[in-house]
C-alpha cells in the first residue's frame, strides 16, 4: 500500500525524488480520511514554499484541508488533471493523483522524513 521508493510526512504527504525534483501527493490514509475529494486549489508555478508551509488546499464534500509541503522548494509543475478530476486523488493517491512537483531548495530535509515502514507504524496500519 505504501511504496518504499519515497518518504512520508506526519502530515500525511508523500514525496518521491527524481534528481533534484520532488513529486508530492497525499497518502492513501489521508485520502480515506478526507472522503470524496471534489476540488483542489493548486499553487502557482514558481511559488516558493518552505517545509510545512501550505502547498495546496484540498476540498472534500465535508471540509477544506491544507496540504503541507514536506520539503522546501519552488513549484515547477502542478497536476493539471486534478482541476477537472480531483477524484484522482481518491482513486490513485500515490501515482495518478500526484499534486505538485517541486525543485528542492534544501534536499537535506528529505532525510528527516519517515520511511514507508515508519509511516505505516505511525498511522497504526
Amino acid at each position, binding site marked *: 500500500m505504501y511504496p518504499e521508493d519515497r518518504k512520508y510526512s506526519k502530515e500525511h504527504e508523500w514525496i518521491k525524488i527524481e534528481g533534484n525534483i520532488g513529486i508530492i501527493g497525499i497518502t492513501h490514509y489521508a485520502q480515506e480520511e478526507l*472522503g470524496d475529494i471534489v476540488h483542489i*486549489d493548486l499553487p502557482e508555478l514558481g511559488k516558493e514554499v518552505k517545509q510545512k508551509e501550505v502547498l495546496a488546499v484540498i*476540498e472534500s*464534500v*465535508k471540509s477544506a484541508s491544507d496540504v503541507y509541503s514536506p520539503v522546501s522548494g519552488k513549484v515547477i509543475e502542478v497536476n493539471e488533471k486534478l482541476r477537472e478530476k480531483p477524484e484522482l486523488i481518491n482513486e490513485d493517491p500515490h501515482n495518478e493523483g500526484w499534486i505538485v512537483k517541486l525543485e528542492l531548495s534544501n534536499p537535506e530535509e528529505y532525510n528527516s522524513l519517515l520511511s514507508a515502514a515508519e509511516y505505516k507504524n505511525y498511522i497504526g496500519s
Partner: protein
Amino acid sequence: MAKKLFLEEEHINLGAKFFDFAGWLMPLQYSSIVEEHLSVRTHLGIFDISHMGRILVKGNSAKDFLQHITTNDINKLFPGKAQYSLILNYSGTIMDDIIVFMLNHDEFLLVVNAINTEKVLNWLKQNNTLNLEISDLTKETILLAIQGPKSEETLEKYLKINLSEIKYYHFIKSPFGNTELLISRTGYTGEDGFEILADLKTGKKIFLDLVYKENITPCGLGARDTLRIEMGYPLYGHEIDENTTPWEANLAWVVKLNKGDFIGKKALIEKKDKKTKYLNGFIMVENGIPRVGYEVYLKEEKIGYITSGTFSPILKLGIGMLYTYIDIQNEVFIKIRERYLRAKIEKPPFIKNTSLKKGEDKNVS
C-alpha cells in the same frame, strides 16, 4: 461524553465513520457521502436519525397548550396528520423548528432537533400550567428515515402493507409483530420517503432487515446535510436560531397570526417589517466550495455570511444559503480563502423534479 445511538454497534459493523453532532456520536458516512447522496436521489437510502428528540405531550388540554407554544395552526391537525411548525421565545425568534404529529385528540408527538431537545423539554415543562403529561421518548425509541424514489415500493414489500394512501405529512400506526410502528411520509432529503418510529428492539430488527435483506444503502449525516442543502431546507444553528425571526428565515408560511395568541406573537408583529437580514440561496459561478461562516461581498463591501455551503453531488458545483444585511437579487462574491469568487443568488430548491410529491403541504424538515 457524547451520547451513543442504540444501533452504534450496527453502524460500526457497516463501516461507519463517526463524528460529534449535537452531543451525539453519529455516523457521518459509510461508503462515501457522494455515493450515499446519489443513492437517495436515484434509488434509496436509510438513515438512523434517533438523535432527533421525540417528546410526547398528553392530556385533555394538550391541543390548546401546543396552539399556544407553536406558530402553526394546531386546528388544522387531525389524528394521522403531521405539521411543520416553530417554537418561538417571547422575542419572536426561533427556539426550534419541529414536526407535530397528532396521535389522538389528547395526544401529540413532537419531533425536535437533537441540539434543542433539552431546551424544548424544559420550555414545555416551564409553560405546563395545565398539568399535562410531558415525556421524553428519545432514548426509548428508534427513528429511521427511508428516503428515495424506491422507498414506497420497497417498504410496502417489506412491511406487507399499503403505503400509497399515506399522503405527504400524514402518518399511520401500523402493527408490527406485537408492537406498533408510527410510519409517516416525511423527510429531509427532497425525495419521497418515510420515517419510522419504533421501540428499540423493533427498530433494530427493521434497520438490519432493510440494510441486509432489502439492500437499502445506509447513509450518514454527511449525505443528509448535502441532500437538505440541495433542497434549501433550513437547519437549526445554521439558517435559524434565537437571533432569527421566522420573517427573516422565509418561514412566514408556518406562522399563523390569525389563529389566536401564542408565545412570541406580539414581538413577531412588531418585527414583521423590520428584517435585519435576508436569507437567500446561491450557486457558485466560479469554481470553489462555499462553507458555513465564509463572508459575502458586494463590490468591496462585506454584506453578509454563509449559513450552509457544500459541493452539490448532483450539480457538481458549490451551492449554499446565506444571510445578507441588505436585500439582494443578483450576484455576490464569496470570500474563499484569499479569493473573491462569483456566485449568483438563486431560489432553492437547487434540484427540481425530485420524487417528492408535496400534495397540500410545503416541505421543510
